[in-house]
């Protein structure tokens, strides 16, 4: 006859419980791959030492006007961002970033069919519109409230000093031949 022994049963039960709990703790994430690539030795840094200083972007941002308040938000190497508030509520974000730190950001402009201020423009997702200046500097306006529409985003992109930004020294070869450089200043005739 088969003898039933509790102690013998307890050990495998505990082991399987342990395995089960471990499996729960190690649930895979959609970010596991990027986590692996960006940690440990040999990981590529998020920001290249060759990128433009964020502070050099400040002067190209639009200023507060028409009841919209433009407030500095972030400034890191290769990146500067401002909030746009109306009646104390955040309605949009304005950003300039150096795509040397994230080249795929410049790639998306290859499919651009429109221009804003003479530079290739794209819509991204539901709430962002961007232009690429000199094949390198991405200027982006992001809606944070439904009242701030795509038309507003375009209007605010036009308020940036895009031509001034194009005058920054750093040039990279454009990712595509269709990328426009700074439009030439019309002669005052």
């Amino acid at each position: 006859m088969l003898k039933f022994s509790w102690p013998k049963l307890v050990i495998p039960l505990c082991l399987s419980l342990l395995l089960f709990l471990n499996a729960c703790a190690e649930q895979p994430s959609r970010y596991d791959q990027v986590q692996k690539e960006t940690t440990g030795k040999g990981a590529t840094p998020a920001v290249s030492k060759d990128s433009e200083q964020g502070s050099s972007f400040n002067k190209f941002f639009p200023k507060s006007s028409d009841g919209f308040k433009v407030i500095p938000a972030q400034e890191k190497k290769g990146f500067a961002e401002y909030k746009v508030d109306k009646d104390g509520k955040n309605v949009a974000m304005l950003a300039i970033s150096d795509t040397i730190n994230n080249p795929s950001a410049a790639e998306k402009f290859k499919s651009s069919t429109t221009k804003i201020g003479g530079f290739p423009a794209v819509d991204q997702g539901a709430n962002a519109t961007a232009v690429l200046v000199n094949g390198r500097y991405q200027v982006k306006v992001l809606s944070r409230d439904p009242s701030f529409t795509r038309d507003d985003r375009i209007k605010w992109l036009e308020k940036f000093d895009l031509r001034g930004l194009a005058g920054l020294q750093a040039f990279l070869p454009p990712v595509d031949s269709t990328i426009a450089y700074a439009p030439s200043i019309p002669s005052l005739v």
Partner: protein
Amino acid sequence: MSKPIFKIVDELPTGGLTVMALKSLDKVVPGKWDNLVGFDNTIRTVTGETDEDLIQQIGERAVTLFNDKSQGYQRALWLYETVDNASGLLGSAALANRIGQDTFLGFLKNISPKPEKAQTIDLSVKLVTEVVAFCQINGIPGDSLGDFIAALTSYSGESFLRMAALVCFDGVIPLGADFALKGLSMIKGMNPSDLEGNQTFKGVKDLIPGNNTSEQLGFITESFEATQGWMNNLVSDNNITQQGLVNNLTSFIEVSKDKLDYLAAFLDMTVKYYYHTGVQTLARRLIERAVAEI
């Protein structure tokens, strides 16, 4: 290797003492805070985007930025974590078991309330930590001191609530509604050795500007002076009183009104509001930058 940022944000609690204490502030400063947790959920809420490919791109850039130590995000997280841990005296797990039990008040008797001086140092060190963490996360935005102050004072959401919690839990409850005045005069009368003996200061002193404790005390005093007006306004604009705060907290913590110093010590031990809202601020800023850079 530290924990991945997406796990840290995913593991933020939706309940427990910290969240209850923060929610109790909703009566004081209404509508300022949603307990936003979960990494993907934060991406969706902050950006308003729903496309899964786009969310993946934003998340990947945010993870990359966080993992680059030179970007300061890890240091900010460390600050928020350390300033909370250092000010607490005991593990919250052991204490949480006592909540709701008859012996809870008996247990409170075993906690020594912090003297006013230690409480004042805690408050001012946490305040300075906020300024330092702000710079680690956001850099020093703008072209002038005025720009920087505008950025710092346009706090909203969880950042605002963290400051409100600081004023309420570390200021008004232990020291009274005139805590800022009281605290500032106390700090001005302190020696560097007073700071050196304080746990909260010891926890974060390496990242406080200054070549020695004396200079660090100077920086702390200046920061306190600079923010004193803002803190006083918060108290007067929202009619914050010691009594009102205690009434809100007693909806979930049993405490008698003559034990306010014990209540402050108890909050100190159990409520990790700097870490909780700090992670939320960090996640939000990372995501705002990531969506702008992709």
